[in-house]
């Protein structure tokens, strides 16, 4: 099976969202997860600009410049939704009222540290936003990212090399070839793509990783790739 594309990675993360939970999806790949929630799960998506209960994207002719998510995308509200100000939104986030946040990242360390604000472009200003607040405040932090960089370097590391977004907070990582838990003992491989040998997987991972006794195959339905 080929490595998962972006929509497939988002789909896989969405399968783990529990019915009735409150979820914040980061800009980029994570936000795609909303489209792949299994039927019958009633979830509130929170956006850190204050929307509690983000619904589907607004149709172009229904777009309202004031009804947008944190990524400035025109949205709708789901039934029971409301909108609060930034103080209220981050009070909710920091106060532990978000069950899960799914974020993008460049690197995740075996102790749960992670880096997702790209400060590598010379002289470009920082882009921190609300990720630090989400990483510290949410009850669980999940990361969606490619398993390796374009040059093939591992993104799962013993220690992050990039500036940290937050320490000791990531609980689960969804990559294009695996699902990995971050436990007090370090990384644990939960699911692996068919066709990727354990040795190859270890070679592509920059830290020791335990293999779950009930290791499963990572599978996802056929989905077109996404550019979001």
């Amino acid at each position, binding site marked *: 099976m080929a490595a998962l594309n972006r929509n497939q990675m988002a789909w896989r993360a969405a399968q783990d969202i529990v019915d009735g939970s409150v979820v914040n999806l980061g800009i980029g790949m994570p936000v795609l997860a909303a489209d792949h929630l299994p039927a019958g799960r009633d979830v509130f998506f929170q*956006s*850190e*600009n*204050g*929307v509690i209960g983000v619904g589907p994207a607004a149709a172009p002719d229904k777009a*309202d*410049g*004031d*009804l*947008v*998510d*944190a*990524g*400035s*995308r025109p949205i709708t509200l789901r039934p029971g939704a409301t*909108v*609060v*100000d*930034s*103080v209220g*939104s*981050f*009070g909710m*986030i*920091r106060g532990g009222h978000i069950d899960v946040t799914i974020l993008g990242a460049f690197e995740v360390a075996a102790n749960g*540290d992670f880096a997702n604000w790209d400060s590598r472009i010379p*002289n*470009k*200003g*920082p*882009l*921190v*936003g*609300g*990720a*630090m*607040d989400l990483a*510290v*405040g949410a009850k669980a932090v999940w990361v969606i990212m490619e398993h390796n960089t374009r040059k093939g370097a591992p993104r799962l590391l013993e220690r992050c090399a990039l*500036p*940290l*977004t*937050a*320490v000791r907070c990531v609980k689960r990582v969804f990559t294009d070839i695996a699902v990995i838990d971050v436990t007090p003992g370090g990384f644990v491989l939960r699911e692996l793509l068919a066709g990727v040998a354990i040795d190859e997987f270890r070679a592509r991972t920059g830290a020791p990783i335990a293999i779950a006794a009930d290791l499963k195959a990572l599978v996802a339905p056929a989905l077109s790739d996404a550019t979001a």
Partner: protein
Amino acid sequence: MAIDKRVASAAEAMEGVRDGATVLVSGFGGAGFANVLIRALREHGPKELTLVVNSATHRLSLTHELIEAGMVRKVIASSARGRADGLSVFETLWRDGKIELECVPQGTMAERIRAGGAGIPAFYSPVGFGTDLAKGKEVRIFGGRECVLETAIVGDLALVRADVADRFGNLVFRYAQANFGPAMATAATLTVAEVRVAQEEPIGHDRIQVSGVYVNRVVAVGS
């Protein structure tokens, strides 16, 4: 004398704003940018400003005009990344050491402004601990969790975008237009709101989101 905080123009609303002012500017996620007031501030022309704004140069905001006009000494923001591949004017000035940047996690920024308006001089927060943004900040453990000491932000001027105001300065926002506006309104010596409609009659008590107690001047600017 009957209270009436409506003024005739954005230019009039800038009266008394001085060099060196700290200016809080609302707007985030594509909504709530006080662009008419930002333009009026540029024309008013104070120098050496400190801007407190979520994004230093959001594409939908005119804050970049203040920066390009050389009016800004420092920016406090959670984001300062230009969209283009090359450097923005802000990024060039920042690289050259001609403008200062204090980068703050977004929720910490909101909370610091809220603290400024609510008379809380400082608070501890777990956000940012162990990161570059907490460098030099005091760390203290509460409930087994490392927290950093954060201090309040107050402004000389707040520029806030809302939907409807009444003559008492009470404000109502549409959807995600609120974002930083309500907190900023409480944290500045002079709070000015630009609104779609500034009405004579009072807004219903149960619809008001920001009390006019916090708002000094209101300008109707249309949609």
